[in-house]
């Protein structure tokens, strides 16, 4: 009985802890440049202060067969190939994707980054096409891409 009580208490604590993890929503406009080639596969990942992948926020590209073209992210993904992230279609040259991310407030200003990784069939892979520091400024600025992405613009909802 005692054990049962303890278990209930633990569960209650856990539930309240999860509810208190405050998150905020950010609208993300991802604008591709007019590169020539097939639609790009793109992942958006949360990178911790040590530079490690912590969470996948968004995957653009429908066919898991091509996930391995996103080489660095794939190393993280293939350890546990199950996606809880949002998924969408691959994005073609010149096109855009608008989506909303939820990010925990506690991660802001702690050295975290949002990494946008891009790959296009038969073309160069960009491990960090765009990288945005998770700071108050970073999350409202327009950041130019270095590969297939023209820019990424975030705005708090």
């Amino acid at each position: 009985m005692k054990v049962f009580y303890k278990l209930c208490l633990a569960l209650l604590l856990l539930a309240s802890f999860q509810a208190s993890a405050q998150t905020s929503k950010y609208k993300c406009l991802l604008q591709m440049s007019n590169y020539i080639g097939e639609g790009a596969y793109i992942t958006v990942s949360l990178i911790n202060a040590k530079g490690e992948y912590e969470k996948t926020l968004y995957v653009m590209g429908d066919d898991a067969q091509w996930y391995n073209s996103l080489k660095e992210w794939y190393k993280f993904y293939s350890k546990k190939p199950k996606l809880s992230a949002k998924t969408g279609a691959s994005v073609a040259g010149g096109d855009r994707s608008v989506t909303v991310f939820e990010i925990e407030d506690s991660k802001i200003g702690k050295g975290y980054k949002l990494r946008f990784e891009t790959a296009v069939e038969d073309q160069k892979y960009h491990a960090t096409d765009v990288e945005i520091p998770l700071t108050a400024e970073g999350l409202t600025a327009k950041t130019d891409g270095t590969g297939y992405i023209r820019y990424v613009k975030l705005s708090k909802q």
Partner: protein
Amino acid sequence: MKKTIFTALLLASLSGFAQQNSLLSQDFWKTNPGLDAVKAEVAKGNNPAELNPNAFDPVVMAINGNASAETVTYLINQPGNGVKKPTHDGRNYLHWAARTGDVKLVEYLIAQGSDLNLEDTHNYTPAQFAAANGQTNTAIYDAFFKAGIDPKKKYKDGVNLLLIAIPADKDLTLANYFVSKGMSLKDVDASGATAFDYAARTGNIDQLKALIKAGVKYTDQAVVMAAQGSRRSANTIEVYKYLVEDLKLKATATTAEGQTVLHFLARKENQADIIKYFISKGVDAAKADKEGNTPLMLASAGKDVQVLQTLLTGTKDINAVNAKGESALTFAIQNSNAEVAALLIAKGANVQIKDKKGNNLAYHLVEAYRAPRGNQPDDFTAKLTLLKEKGLNLAAPQQDGSTLYHVAVVKNDVALLKKLSAAGIDVNAQNAEGLTALHKAAMVAKDDSVLKYLVSTGAKTNIKTEFDETAYDLAGENELLQKGKVSVDFLK
């Protein structure tokens, strides 16, 4: 008559432009040009580093055209090339050189630091690519082993070079060489498939018997692998009878993805008799694989009416859908012709079906559009007319608010928009992201033709996106329009 001549001239001049870079022309390499001839072409302005639309560059064309190592080396060292350059299907130059069997070139590329372990999009490293293409020059593999590749290495799915090479290795020369390097004829892949099972892909019965004699076991996987065949070939009914009747292998065997022989046969040409044979042996024509695809769906992407009829007799639900929400009719609308689509509709296929994303068949038709080449029939218009006749509303937006114009502008083809002009679509409709077809066209256009056409049909230029942009703003950011110095002032 005049018009025909004009069109012919126009086509000729267009294709003239497309073939500008002589170093990307197969015909050029067929003439066995020496190094001086190649240098002369470069001097004329032919870019030695240009990629064609399939990502072949002059180096790959030269290797595949069996140019001398001297010529290929010269090209590799031109600006923009180099041993790290990715080409078609994610291959490096070492993949191509290993396939053609040019030992000198392979050794040069390895010495220059080519990545021996680079996997192409089919997960083949250069050594695997050589083996998969039946390269029998053992000196190629010697070069890889000398450079540090472990002959006993197991690749993706647990295959080794012997298993990869065996379908093309009729007299087992390569297999015997690999055995001398430490592999074994009895090696199996991660799923337990044997050298016999792999050899069944090309179905040489003498080779299969020789393998049995050498003590190689056979498993039910041989049946499915025989149906997979190789890229260019299909097996004859004798091969299947040998496997199913002589060796008593299971006709109903499936792959790890849940595919039966019918999933593979349905995609190949002239397989009606073999499909009937397997159905008579108890293979379920309606069985879905793990992605929900049935043989009927796969056959509906083709044009073999006889195969369709055969599969239809074993199908209870013609409207079954795969994981993406696509039915056999969706497959037909995407990839086949109006005749196949009409047949399915006549058998009860639902014309109003929507996929998981809420897109209807007209969306799939436009999304799969490719401009007809040469004398190809206009399947697009025939299928569009059919869908309309059968009651599909072509003017209705998709679930995300996109109209067929939104989907069509991405193809950069005014001819396609004209084919849709009678459908009654609102050219100024905004999708869920607030974009009109004109906005979308301004973002993805390669020239001004589609933009001008949309404006001529009443597209408003003053509508703004949710980020407060007009079509003029979006076109102004379009790098391809900038590069082509295309004026977009007509969008102001």
